[in-house]
C-alpha cells in the first residue's frame, strides 16, 4: 500500500515541461513576434484625375449664360466628372488670361466622353485655340492610405489595424482584420468609407492573420 513512485515522477516531469513552456512563452515567443510598420491614415483629398487638353473655343450663347464654350474629349473610363464642375480655360500662349469655366453638359460617344465647358471671356475671338485644364478631387476625406495597406481575399477587401488589447499577461498589441469598402482609390493611394480609429499596418515582415500578436519595427 504505497504511492506509485513511477507515476509521481511522470507527474513532476509533466509539470516541469509546462513550466518550461510558460517561460518560453514569456521570453523567446515575445522576442520573435512578427514585426509590422504602422501609420496614421492621412486626411486630405485624393486626386482622382487631372486632364490638360487643347481645344477650340466657340462664341455663342451657350446654356447657363456663358459667352463662350468649348468641348474636350476624355476616355470613357473617366466617370467622376459632373455638371457644375470647375475648369480653367486659358488662351494658348498668353499668360494670365485664364478664365473660370463650368461644365455645362456631359455626353458620350462610342469611344470617348464629351465635356462641354462654358466660360465668360469678352476678348476671346471665335475659333481661338484654348488650353482647358480640369481636375477632380474627392471631397476632403479622413483616411487616405498607401495601396500597400490594402489586402484582399475571397471575402472582400480588408485592412490590418493594430489595437492594444488585454492579453494573457497584461496588455499587448494585436492585429485585427477590418473589412473595408474601398471608397475612392488611385494607383498609389486609396480611401475607405468607414472611420479608422487605430493605426493601420502598411508593411510587415511576415504574413499576418487576424488576432495575431505583433511588435513594431524600430
Amino acid at each position, binding site marked *: 500500500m504505497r504511492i506509485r513512485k513511477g507515476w509521481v515522477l511522470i507527474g513532476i516531469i509533466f509539470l516541469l515541461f509546462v513550466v518550461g513552456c510558460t517561460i518560453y512563452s514569456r521570453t523567446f515567443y515575445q522576442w520573435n513576434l512578427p514585426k509590422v510598420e504602422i501609420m496614421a491614415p492621412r486626411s486630405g483629398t485624393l486626386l482622382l484625375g487631372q486632364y490638360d487638353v487643347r481645344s477650340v473655343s466657340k462664341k455663342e450663347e451657350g446654356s447657363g449664360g456663358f459667352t463662350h464654350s468649348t468641348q474636350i474629349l476624355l476616355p470613357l473610363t473617366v466617370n467622376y466628372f459632373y455638371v457644375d464642375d470647375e475648369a480653367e480655360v486659358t488662351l494658348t500662349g498668353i499668360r494670365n488670361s485664364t478664365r473660370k469655366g463650368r461644365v455645362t453638359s456631359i455626353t458620350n460617344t462610342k469611344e470617348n466622353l464629351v465635356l462641354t465647358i462654358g466660360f465668360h471671356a469678352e476678348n476671346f475671338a471665335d475659333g481661338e485655340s484654348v488650353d482647358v485644364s480640369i481636375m477632380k478631387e474627392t471631397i476632403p476625406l479622413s483616411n487616405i492610405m498607401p495601396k500597400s495597406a490594402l489586402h484582399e481575399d475571397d471575402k472582400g477587401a480588408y485592412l490590418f489595424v493594430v489595437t492594444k488589447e488585454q492579453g494573457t499577461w497584461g496588455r499587448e498589441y494585436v492585429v485585427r482584420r477590418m473589412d473595408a469598402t474601398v471608397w475612392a482609390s488611385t494607383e498609389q493611394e486609396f480611401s475607405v468609407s468607414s472611420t479608422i*480609429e487605430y493605426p493601420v499596418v502598411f508593411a510587415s515582415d511576415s504574413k499576418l492573420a487576424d488576432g495575431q500578436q505583433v511588435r513594431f519595427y524600430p
Partner: protein
Amino acid sequence: MNKFLKFILVIIITMGSLTGCSFEAKNDELYNSKLEEITVHLNKYGESVDELIKSPQNGNNSTQKELATDSTDSGLIGTLRISVMWPDHETNLIAVAAKKFQALYPEVKIQIQFHDDVLKYQAQTSVELMSNTAADIIDFFYIPYERYAAAGLLADLYPLMNADDSFHKEDYFVNVFEAFEDSQNGLFAVPLSFIFNSVSMRQDFMKSFDAEFENRGGISYQQMLDLYVRAQAGMEDENLYMSEFASATSWFEFEWDNLVDTRNKKVYMNTPEFLSNLEKIKRIKLTENVTQTKDGPGVIGSGYFIRDEIFKRNPAVLFVLNSSIEENIQTLLPFHDMIYSKPIPILSDGMPTMYAPFVLGITNTCQNKELAWKFLSYCMAERALPVKEVDTNSFLFRLGFPINKQNFRKLVQAVANDTLSKGGVAGYSFSGNRTAVIEESMAQVEKWCGMKGKVMQMDLNLFLDLIYPDLYQFLIGKQTAEQTAARIQTKTEIYLNE
C-alpha cells in the same frame, strides 16, 4: 528537493518578465504617437466638413451650447454604479456622458464596470440582482429585463420621470416610451435609441405583384414570405433571393408574439399554418455575401450605395432590410434611378415593430434613484455630437435613432448630408436644392418615427436553446415539419411554465 525546484522557478519567471517589459516601453510610446496623430486628423477633418454642414444649416445652431441644467438641483451628491455591456471607448455614450456629468456635478462619483462576454454578463447580473449587490443602472443588452421586472427587481421610471420637472416630455419620442410599457403600463426600461424595422422592395416586382405596400402603412413578415413564395413560383429560373435578414431566425423573431401568448402561458406552434410556414421558410434563398473587388480607380460606393449597384447586377433580391440609419435615409432621398422602394415598416399584428439596441434600467436596490434618473436623463438629453465623422456618432447611439428629438435631427441631418455628398461622388445625381431635400427627408423620417410601435425583444440565447436545434435538423432535411413543430411546442411550453 522541491524547495530547490521552487527557487529555480521564481528566478526564471522574474528574469522572463524583466526582459519582456523593456520591449514594452519602446512599443508603447511609438503606438501612442501614432494614436495622437489619428485623433488630430479626425478633429482637423471634423472642422473642414463642419462648414459643409453649417453653411446650409438654418435656425437654431445650438450644437455648441452645453445643456446647462437649471441650477436649482446643482447640489447633487452621491455615488452611482453602472454596469455596461460595451467596451470603454469613445463611442460608448455612457462613458462619455459620465465624464461630462462628473465635470458638471463635482460631488457625484460614477463607477462604470465594462463587460464584453454576453454569457458571463448575464450570469453576473443575475447573481448581483439576487444578492442585492447589483449596480444602480444596468445595460439590458441580451438581458431578459421583462423577467427581472416581473420578479420586482427593477424600479418603475414613470414616477421618477414625472417628478423630474427639468425633463420635458415633448423633447422626446413619447410613443417609444409607451411601446416599452409592460402590462400594468409601468416603464421599467428606458431606450436611449431605437430603430423601426423597415424593408425596401424592388420597385419592378412591386408593380408586377400590385404589392403597393407603401401606402398600406406597412407589411407583415407573413405577407413578405407569401409574396416571396408567389414570386419565386412565377420566376422560371428560381434565382429570386432575399437579403441575409430573412433567414429562418427572423420568422420566429417577427412572429413571436402571434405564436406565444406569455400572459396565459399558451403556445400555438403545432397549428397547420405553422407547418405551412415552416415549409415556406425552407424555400427562402439567401444572397451570398457579395464581394466588391478593389480593382479600377474611382470605384465608389459605401454601404448603402454599394447595395444598389451590386443588387442591380444580382438577378433579383426581393426584400432588403434597412438595418441602420443610413439605409433608412438613403432610400428616402430623391435619387432618380433607385431600384428600391421607400422604406416600408414591418408590422407584427398591425403594429409597426421596433428594435431597441440601447436600453437602460434602474434597479430597485439603488438608494439614490433621483440621482440615477438625473444621470439617465442627462444621457438622453441633447448633446453636442463631438466628432463630425458620422460613423462614430451613430455608434454612440449603437446605430439607432436617438430618442431625443434635437439629437435625432442633428444625427439625421449629418447622415443625410454625408449620404448626399457621397452620393454625389458616387454618380447618383439629383436635382433641386440640397438643404430643401435634407429638410424634407428629415420631416418624413421624423413623422415616420413618431408612429405607435411595438418592441421586438427576441432573446437570442433563448432562441439558441429552444428553437434552433430542431429548426436546424428540419432545414437540413433530417426531420419532418410535424416532428419539428411538436418538439418546439413542448420546449416552449416548458420555458413558459417555468
